[in-house]
């Protein structure tokens, strides 16, 4: 979707403001927000693409006003309600509906190191998929404007680049985010010259690399 989250190339957001000796979390609730997202995610009612999309769906003016973890909480509540883990009434009241049976949490303390520090979540898929391109091929990012989730930023659409590497077969976010299947396909590192993206005033030797799936690309 053409949302405000797709920020690459925009002007007017001001200077970058690094913070000295920045803490990992600026308030206790930020850590809890992150932890709630990961622990609730262990129900496997959604996936990483759906959770990214839940934040993209935050209305633009609010997305820009909210801090990072405020967006996480807003997205998490939507996911919890949409997947039926909680009802909106329960969120508003802050307690379970009367007569609710208590579930058993799928993520235990003992499993946390495995999720965060060992296994993580694999996004490659061991399936046969014919790559449409190989290193050195010239491609053009499709000029598409899907209203759902996509990882093809606006600034690259319609522009030509060169495949520099085939990463292998990965889950396709555009369908996975909407629970329409993983549609695993080849993912490539594609080099776009800065002048191709930004015009003649960009330095001739500079470039931007994006990871793009087969479905985003046409031969050029």
């Amino acid at each position: 979707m053409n949302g405000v989250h797709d920020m690459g190339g925009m002007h007017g957001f001001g200077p970058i403001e690094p913070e000295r000796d920045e803490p990992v979390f600026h308030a206790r609730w930020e850590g809890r927000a992150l932890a709630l997202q990961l622990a609730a995610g262990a129900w496997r009612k959604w996936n990483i693409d759906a959770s990214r999309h839940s934040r993209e769906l935050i209305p633009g003016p609010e997305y820009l006003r909210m801090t990072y973890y405020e967006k996480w909480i807003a997205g998490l509540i939507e996911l919890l309600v949409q997947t039926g883990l909680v009802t909106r009434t329960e969120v508003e009241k802050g307690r379970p509906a009367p007569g609710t049976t208590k579930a058993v949490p799928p993520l235990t303390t003992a499993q946390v190191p495995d999720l965060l520090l060992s296994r993580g979540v694999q996004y490659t898929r061991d399936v046969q998929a014919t790559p449409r391109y190989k290193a050195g091929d010239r491609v053009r990012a499709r000029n598409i404007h899907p209203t759902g989730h996509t990882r093809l930023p606006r600034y690259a659409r319609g522009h030509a680049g060169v495949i520099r590497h085939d990463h292998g077969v990965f889950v396709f976010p555009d369908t996975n985010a909407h629970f329409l299947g993983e549609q695993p396909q080849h993912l490539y590192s594609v080099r776009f010259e800065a002048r191709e993206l930004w015009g003649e005033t960009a330095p001739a030797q500079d470039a931007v690399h994006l990871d793009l799936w087969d479905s985003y690309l046409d031969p050029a």
Partner: protein
Amino acid sequence: MKDLHHHGHQELPSDMALRVKALESLLVEKGLVDPAALDAIVDTYEHKVGPRNGARVVAKAWSDPGYKARLLKDGTAAIAELGYTGRQGEHMVVLENTPRVHNLVVCTLCSCYPISVLGLPPVWYKSAPYRSRAVIDPRGVLREFGLELPQGVEVRVWDSTSEIRYLVLPERPPGTDSLSEEQLAELVTRDAMIGAAKVAPPAKGVRP
């Protein structure tokens, strides 16, 4: 989206603290999350994962040519040799900065970051100014970080649009020939491993 419209406006941190606390108690009461697991997640990101992980990878690459070759060929496997694996580090690619090429990592669409080696991202990396400008004006961004690159240097920006996570291998600074791997790791900063800075030579007075 109803919830957002009703509660998204002018949230103050204290309101957020209450709201997150209410959500946590709801999920705990329903048996959807285990509060001890939440504590373990927070503890992991506060104490067990951070840029010191990445710094050890960089220092080893500077000290051991065989390791550096493995790191550039298969980042995930070479980083796993040091025990750094897990969430948001499942598919790692390492980018080598040289006198001729400077790499800079961003995620314009959200805030993807190589957490297994750098920990959670700083606020500036997640901010609209960085996400918007890194791809269109990387030299201007680097200038704000105090790094003026010569015209002849090629700037390569890497937009983290997939689950591949990028770690920059900075240039080893001069005057460090006699330093141990541990001493080298002390020099490596988070920003240098994002590509937003170079690694500075050791301050005078450091002795091997």
